[in-house]
């Protein structure tokens, strides 16, 4: 048999026609046929019942009436340009990230752009959504594309983008949003007024970014040959991982004050953030440890043979390889942390879920509309988490984790 003949004989099968596809995938035998019929009946009733409820009997006023509340909470309305500017920086950088990292961010960036665009043209009659606000959202949506073009230019690199993100986050969280006392342009806004999606994102991003270095240190500590460091790391990691996040959040909001000098006071949101950071650090440590263990011994031995010091070996040889391996796990953990931010309602912080609770009490007519409000919040969380896990899946494939 010649090569060409062989190549012909193993041509891929032709795609199935629709009827053949249905027969193969839905009615291959009598058991499958029954399963299919039951599923169709179930789907029909579930979908029609839900559609009937969502379109006719549900009352979406609490959700549609106060979009700004869900976005920024009680942030003073005359100071809205500050979260607005934060959004501006963020959308631009999302665009830049899309340009730099291409397909990992692509889906997320496009999704944000479309969401902002939809927000701009949403046919809602609320005082919140003035034409200026709508135009602003539309502008942000276009800004993502502008960022994308910038990210494509030669002088933008992953390192620079990361540093820009870091710089912008610091500016947003420490300067722009809190403001200064006695300042005319940027009067200080107490953190109790922050809320909604803004709060949720701040807690999630802040939690993961701040917990990362601590987690890496703990992971290195756990693998250290120094007994004191090792015992402390193991004790810390296992204790935190053994208790629920609620207890840690509660400890930081109630007990922490007892361990500090009597006159010192820490902001409520900072306390919650500290709890999230400590909690997340323990899990990051375990993820990173997995990466560290996957690095072959030979790498370290080779580095030692080349005369690198212990610090150099860890910093230049082991850590870069280990962290690369665990990026998908870290994204997974970020999703978990993002969902876990809802627990801060228990210590009285108005994140997205907290705002949902507040909206229910806004108007006596809304009191029994929990289904609508919580479903809306669930959808927001779902969309964010889904796109993050989608990006993580892409990342995993691109890095070839598990294939090497």
């Amino acid at each position, binding site marked *: 048999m010649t090569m060409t003949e062989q190549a012909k004989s193993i041509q891929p099968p032709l795609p199935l026609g629709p009827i053949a596809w249905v027969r193969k*995938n*839905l009615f*291959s035998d009598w058991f*499958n046929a029954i*399963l*299919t019929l039951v*599923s*169709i009946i*179930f*789907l029909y009733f579930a979908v029609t019942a839900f559609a009937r409820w969502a379109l006719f009997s549900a009352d979406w006023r609490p959700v549609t009436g106060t979009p700004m509340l869900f976005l920024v909470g009680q942030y003073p309305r005359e100071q809205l340009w500050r979260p607005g500017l934060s959004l501006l920086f963020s959308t631009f950088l999302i665009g830049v990230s899309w340009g730099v990292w291409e397909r990992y961010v692509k889906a997320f960036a496009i999704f944000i752009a479309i969401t902002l665009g939809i927000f701009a043209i949403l046919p809602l009659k609320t005082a919140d959504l003035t034409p200026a606000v709508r135009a602003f959202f539309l502008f942000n949506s276009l800004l993502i594309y502008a960022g994308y073009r910038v990210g494509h230019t030669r002088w933008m690199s992953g390192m620079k983008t990361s540093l820009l993100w870091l710089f912008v986050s610091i500016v947003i969280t420490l300067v722009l949003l809190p403001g200064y006392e006695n300042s005319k342009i940027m009067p200080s806004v107490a953190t109790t007024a922050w809320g909604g999606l803004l709060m949720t994102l701040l807690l999630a991003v802040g939690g993961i970014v701040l917990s990362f270095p601590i987690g890496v240190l703990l992971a290195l500590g756990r693998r250290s*040959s*120094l*007994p*004191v*460091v090792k015992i*402390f790391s193991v004790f810390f990691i296992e*204790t935190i*991982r*053994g*208790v*629920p*996040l*609620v*207890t840690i959040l*509660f*400890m930081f909001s*109630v*007990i922490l*004050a*007892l*361990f*500090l*000098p*009597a006159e010192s006071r820490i902001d409520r949101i900072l306390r919650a953030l500290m709890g999230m950071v400590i909690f997340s650090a323990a899990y990051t440590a375990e993820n990173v440890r997995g990466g560290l263990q996957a690095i072959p011994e030979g790498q370290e031995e080779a580095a030692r043979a080349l005369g690198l010091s212990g610090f150099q070996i860890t910093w230049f040889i082991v850590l870069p390889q280990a962290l690369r391996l665990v990026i998908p796990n870290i994204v997974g953990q970020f*999703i978990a942390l993002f*969902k*876990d*931010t*809802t*627990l801060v*309602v*228990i210590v009285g912080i108005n994140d997205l*879920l907290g705002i949902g609770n507040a909206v229910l009490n806004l108007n006596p007519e809304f009191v*029994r509309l*929990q*289904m609508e409000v*919580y*479903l809306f*919040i*669930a959808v927001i*969380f*779902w969309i964010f*988490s*889904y796109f993050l*896990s989608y990006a993580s899946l892409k990342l995993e494939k691109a890095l070839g984790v598990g294939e090497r």
Partner: protein
Amino acid sequence: MNREKIPFWRDERYLRIAAQVVSAVVILGFLYWAVVNFLTVTQQRGMSLTFGFLKEPAGFPISESFILYDPQMSFGRAFLVGLVNTLVVSILGIFFSTILGLIVGLARLSSNWLVSRIALAFIEFNRNIPLLVLLFLLYFGFFTKLPGVKESMELPGPIYINQRGLYFTWPRLTESGGVFLAFTIAGVLLAIIAWIVLRKIRELKGRETYFGWVSLAIFILLPLLGWVLSPSAPLRVDIPELSGFNFRGGLRFSPEFSAVLIGLTIYTAAFIAEVIRAGILAVRKGQVEAARALGLSSSQTLGLIVIPQAMRVVIPPLISQYLNLTKNSSLALTIGFQELFAVGKVTINQAGRAVPVFILIMATYLAISLITSAILNVYNRRVQFIEK
């Protein structure tokens, strides 16, 4: 040999000791600072740090308890009630989420496109929303919206569903149920013993002992014998009945308990389904093909080849899902089911002793986590592949 002396600041032995001392000083120094602050603050506020309060009467009611409790009983007892509530909801949650997760995981792998997609939708919905939102949806969105007692929904069984909770028809032991109960317990124990012994015999002697059938027979026949031997009917069917403004009889699940249990179950089931799917996919196709080539039936292939190998991959992540479920049960406090953490929180307010109560709560959760993972790790070690 000319040996250059290494200066001590580059000698690894010295450096190691120095690093240890520095880290010890930093850690201990920080702890010392915290403890000193703590002692001053507690002294200023006159807070007590002993556990003596556990014997004092609690004075607060607990809406739901599986052991005897009333507000005159001690704080210790209240804490125990919370612990039992946590354990009951966790164990039931683990049981149901494993079953549901198994079903969904298998459905996800089904060759039927529609079934697989429905399973995928279930998994993706639950995995991507916060558990707390799911609990709120179930409790505030569903259970508090149920009809009142008079307009209860009735499901076959009969099961009644209304604002006060779920009422199941439930078998209960009568006065003459002791004999039946004893025979049932004996039946279960003997069935397990027969299973182990006969299986061992089969392994050693190499002849078929039908251990499955024998233990099944013991498991069915002994309770049956107990039923026949008992003087009157050992079980009666307890049907919930509407009397006055409420249902009586039957088994009642409160709305709070039901919401927590259902929420934990379906949330964790989505994760377990993914674990199980990964486990089954991890078994190489060649294993199944080889088993079929050797003439094993498809049920034998599944039971003897696929499941034992899938178990090795499944058990470690399954352990962490079980532990997550147990820890997540602490969210029940948000919808008013008083488990360990909720009782602890009330105790802090009532007794005013934040620190001892917190130590107690954290120690209890740690103990639950450690004991669960210890038990499951023993099992894990047994199913793991022993390399020769």
